[in-house]
């Protein structure tokens, strides 16, 4: 690879690293001049209070905990590493440390010099249930500048009735406004009319290229190891880039650093086990969590294929360790390994999975400058193998591997200003097909050449409060270099319905830059506080996406192909504007919001009819490029506490494409266009032993493509096809119920019970609804007879026809 490419990023980093505070200040000043924003720069009279906020029980850092200086009625919230920093004039202050569901700690602090205060908060006696939660933390909905974001802690996720009783991160976020999927069994999720491949999914900063197990029935995240999930649907901060639709930021637990705990569950389809504990008390801890499905074992007696050696299972292993070196330095090492296996006789079949590894170093340069340095690797691969012996076989592997280096900095200037900046360099290797075929002992290599690319970016963002107004401007500058190695193709112009003709094929040198793209990605978020309980917010972002997920199937599936931007495929550019009104009621017991959004996307990929996506050196010639648009309205009302809590979410949305060469160049709906999406989730706590949960959703039918005529050729009936996605399946609706029985602390014989135990009973698709997944058209199934015309018919496919019951037992010691 080209060293120069790293230089841009490296020099950016070293400059900040090596230079004195004075130069840093100059950097900031330059930025401020550009932004035309003025604020009080750091001065001698100000002093910094900083530290970490943690959970007293297990030492996990708390993300988004609030630190408020009561005298000034201002403060800050902890970042994703649990760190906060507040710079204020010296004095005697009363400082509150607050977090939803935890007891507030108030400290008297005499601030005469920079002071480090680490705080541990205890969970309320009745966690998240009837605890009187602090007003300030719960009004984040209204008071934070962030909009179009959804946060879910793992405790809420655990309460949602889940398919087969298995708690699932991605299924849970699909209950939120603006989030949907094509249907049951489809991989991934869609955000505000965006495609599955336009979501950036991060697991401890590492990109996850396929978020699903068992096609789309489960997600790859093991809930036992997940600490916090945050979804950005719009107003995406400058620190994120690379996908145009959304960012799903999943943070893993660090592991209990006080004592050892073992938790897990035995469920209908898989079992889980997680072990966590201190390596060095209060300094280092670890967590290891694993899952494996055993449907293959359970169904063995009923299925001949399984008895004959077929395998069908998935597993994943999540591990993380951290070490606090001293006050200023902390390191984290985390990894994920997951795999799905479908083999029909022990050798033949297909498998796929993600592997990620992340090494992070949190360093405090001083009380106000927090940094995080990340090195990571992420690898997604799938492989197919057919053939029972070496004489006759077919093997195919495909990979996408990325190596990433990411320095990030937060500079807490004062209680009104925070500056974030950083850089990012990603080296990609794409292996579209590493394949060979052997026929009667004669071998042919049918591999396609690897592709390499380097994506680098740098960003800077500011959050500034000015009275009732908070502004968050930012800019990200990204560069993508498609690197040499494989042959370089150039194509002629698009001819509707035809493959583009190859005009030239040229060799290229390894590492040579074949094509380079630059994009400036401005971001802006605004909040205006109308009164203590309501605010209006607005945001704009421009995003560039250099990787493309190519799929021509009805639903996204694990064999979809990631392909880079090249000299022929342009980067996708997404623009989004969102406006929102946020209002809390009854002392924040209810929070409500209404948001509207509009999106305009450029260089959206589609494909010619009958495109050949695999083993195709000339794939680029079969892709078409067009414009996308999506717009919609989201309503969200949530009740935060009390015996009965939950939310109602409604989305009205449209998602359309306009591609030259498809459907007379008119706008047509995307496969995931859903006009109405209504979701209702409610949790009711009867008593300390029993909790009932339910969710209901009703969603407009998704489009399908239908024929407008038929004709006979060579004894078969072919469809004459209407414009793409012109038909609609009927409405989907479904009710899921679950009941959780938490065992009491005392056994029936009066002795105290060790650990926490619960049973979860679920009913998925309670009223036997056959929700349509798609409708397809075919000629008659039976063998056509001479002298009889061939019948044609429409078939509706439902993935589930019955209620699916589930039961699982969970424990924690």
């Amino acid at each position, binding site marked *: 690879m080209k060293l120069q490419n790293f230089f841009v990023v490296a020099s950016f980093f070293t400059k900040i690293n090596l230079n004195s505070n004075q130069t840093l200040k100059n950097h900031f000043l330059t930025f401020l001049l550009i932004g035309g924003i003025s604020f009080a720069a750091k001065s001698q009279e100000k002093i910094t209070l900083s530290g970490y906020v943690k959970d007293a029980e297990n030492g996990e850092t708390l993300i988004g905990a609030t630190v408020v200086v009561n005298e000034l009625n201002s403060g800050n919230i902890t970042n994703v590493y649990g760190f906060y920093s507040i710079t204020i004039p010296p004095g005697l202050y009363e400082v509150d440390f607050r977090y939803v569901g935890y007891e507030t700690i108030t400290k008297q602090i005499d601030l005469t010099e920079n002071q480090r205060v680490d705080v541990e908060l205890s969970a309320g006696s009745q966690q998240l249930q009837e605890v009187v939660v602090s007003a300030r933390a719960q009004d984040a909905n209204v008071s934070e500048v962030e909009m179009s974001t959804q946060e879910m802690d793992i405790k809420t996720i655990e309460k949602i009735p889940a398919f087969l009783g298995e708690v699932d991160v991605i299924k849970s976020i699909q209950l939120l406004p603006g989030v949907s999927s094509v249907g049951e069994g489809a991989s991934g999720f869609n955000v505000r009319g965006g495609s599955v491949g336009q979501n950036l999914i991060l697991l401890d900063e590492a990109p996850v290229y396929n978020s699903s197990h068992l096609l789309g029935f489960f997600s790859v995240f093991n809930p036992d190891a997940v600490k916090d999930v945050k979804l950005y649907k719009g107003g995406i901060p400058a620190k994120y880039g690379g996908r145009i639709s959304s960012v799903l930021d999943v943070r893993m637990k660090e592991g209990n650093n006080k004592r050892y705990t073992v938790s897990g569950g035995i469920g209908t389809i898989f079992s889980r086990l997680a072990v966590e504990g201190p390596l060095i008390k209060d300094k280092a801890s670890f967590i290891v969590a694993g899952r494996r499905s055993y449907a293959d074992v359970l169904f063995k007696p009923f299925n001949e294929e399984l008895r004959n050696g077929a395998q069908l299972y998935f597993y994943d292993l999540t591990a993380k360790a951290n070490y606090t070196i001293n006050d200023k330095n902390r390191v984290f090492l985390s990894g994920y390994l997951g795999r799905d296996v479908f083999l029909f006789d022990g050798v033949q079949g297909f498998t796929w999975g993600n592997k990620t590894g992340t090494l992070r170093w949190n360093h405090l340069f001083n009380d106000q400058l927090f940094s995080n340095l990340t090195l990571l690797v992420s690898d997604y691969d799938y492989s197919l193998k057919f053939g029972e012996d070496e004489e006759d076989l*077919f093997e195919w592997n495909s990979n996408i591997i990325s190596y990433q280096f990411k320095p990030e900095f937060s500079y807490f200037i004062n209680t009104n200003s925070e500056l974030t900046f950083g850089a990012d360099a990603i080296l990609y290797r794409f292996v579209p097909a590493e394949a060979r*075929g*052997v026929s009667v002992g004669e071998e042919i290599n049918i591999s396609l050449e690897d592709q390499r690319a380097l994506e680098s970016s740098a960003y800077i963002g500011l959050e500034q409060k000015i009275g009732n107004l908070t502004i968050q401007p930012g800019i990200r500058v990204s560069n993508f270099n498609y690197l040499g190695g494989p042959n370089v193709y150039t194509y002629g112009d698009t001819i509707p319905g035809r493959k583009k003709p190859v005009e030239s094929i040229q060799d290229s040198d390894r590492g040579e830059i074949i094509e380079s793209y630059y994009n400036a990605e401005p971001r802006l978020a605004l909040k205006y506080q109308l009164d203590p309980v309501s605010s209006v917010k607005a945001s704009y972002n421009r995003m560039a996406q250099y990787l493309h997920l190519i799929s021509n199937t009805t639903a996204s599936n694990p064999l979809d192909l990631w392909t880079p931007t090249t000299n022929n495929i342009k980067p996708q550019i997404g623009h989004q504007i969102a406006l929102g009104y946020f209002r809390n009621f009854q002392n924040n017991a209810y929070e409500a919001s209404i948001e509207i959004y509009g999106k305009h996307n450029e260089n959206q990929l589609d494909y010619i009819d009958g495109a050949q996506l695999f083993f195709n050196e000339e794939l680029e010639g079969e892709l078409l490029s067009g414009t996308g648009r999506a717009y919609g309205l989201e309503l969200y009302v949530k009740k935060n506490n009390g015996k009965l809590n939950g939310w109602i979410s409604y989305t009205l949305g449209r998602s359309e494409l306009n591609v030259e060469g498809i459907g007379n160049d008119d706008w047509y709906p995307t496969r995931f266009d859903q006009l109405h999406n209504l979701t209702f989730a409610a949790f009711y706590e009867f008593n300390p032993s029993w909790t009932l949960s339910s969710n209901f959703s009703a969603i407009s039918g998704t489009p399908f493509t239908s024929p407008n*005529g038929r004709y006979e050729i060579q004894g078969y009936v072919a469809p004459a096809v209407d414009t793409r996605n012109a038909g609609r399946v009927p409405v989907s609706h479904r009710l899921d119920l679950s009941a959780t029985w938490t065992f009491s602390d005392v056994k029936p014989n009066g002795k105290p019970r060790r650990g926490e135990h619960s049973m979860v009973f679920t009913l998925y698709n309670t009223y036997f609804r056959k929700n349509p997944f*798609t409708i397809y058209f075919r000629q008659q199934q*039976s063998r056509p007879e001479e002298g009889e*015309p061939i019948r044609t018919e429409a078939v509706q496919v439902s*993935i589930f026809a019955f209620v699916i019951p589930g039961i699982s037992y969970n424990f924690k010691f």
Partner: protein
Amino acid sequence: MKRNSILLLTTILGFVACESIVDVKVNETDPYLVVDAWLTRATGDQTIRLTTTQPYFDNSFAPAANDATVTITDGSGSSYAFVEQGNGNYVYNSPDTFGTVGETYHLEVLWAGNTYTSSTILPRKVTIDSLVFNDDEPDESDFGYYAEFFARDPDGIGDAFWLKAWKNGKYLNQPSEIYTFDDVSFSNDDGGGIPFIFPIRTLPNSFEQDINGNNLPLYGLEERFTVIGDQIVDFYGSKAIVEDNQLRIIHDERQRPKPLDDGIEIIPLDSAPYYLENTNTNGQSTVVKKPDSLYLELHAISPDAFFFLARLQQETDRPSGFGALFATPPSDLPTNIKCDEPDVPVVGFFNITNKTSLGRKVSEESIRINYDL
């Protein structure tokens, strides 16, 4: 044989997915011309069929396109006039072998005031070397033997094939039985003359299942089933009743709670592809399944025709149930027919194939045993 991984998914997860035939309103367009012009290098009748499109759910015969003028000309200027014989068929009777390898042929159709044209090149042929029936398992296999044919892809790219199969004289005409491949089945490789690979050699083996999900035999030697009363106790795993000219498979709830949607219930006697005969000797009725035979035609076709057939299969052989997750949405088939009026739609295909053939009956000599005794 187990080439399709999705098949496994479908079987294992099949218990959740569910399908139903539904009434759907679809749009209709005005009918337009369909050209079904598949000729073969041979002597005798060459037939081109002209019809029009019809509404999708119109389950009647395709309407014929009458009063057309159909002509083929070749590079040397020879012209062949096709004569209308009714029902949309236009025929040219060739006294000699029709077609020369490497020659370009032009089709011209004058119909309803428009001129439709197309052209194709006649490809080189490939000979089927041999055909065997494989016995992979020492104990009696429950689905008989599977067929395997051998041929060699010639050097160079651009060779494409359509394998047509007749089982016991019955043309296998289901969408799943469109057997096509090109240059060892991997599009755009360098196609350097190796034997056809295993999945291609075993293409003409399409399982059929009865309503209880039991596999009916692929190819086998003679088998006899004793009829007690009017019943056969074990007809490849199912109970069957002998009726007038047919065998009716009895649904067995223990094997499958609901009959298999596309499973076979009725098997006609004395008729292909299941070659059964009811004999009666000394008052004992016996159903005899005669030794199966397989006849193959390997048609060399143009690369465009290969793409057309592959697409035809994609559009007609739709994955059912859970497999629908992997389906591509329907889209129009390609066509090599052009109308002089660009706004007038036309569909269909013109191609001249170059075929070789081989047929064989299952016998002790044609069975290849693939295990150690």
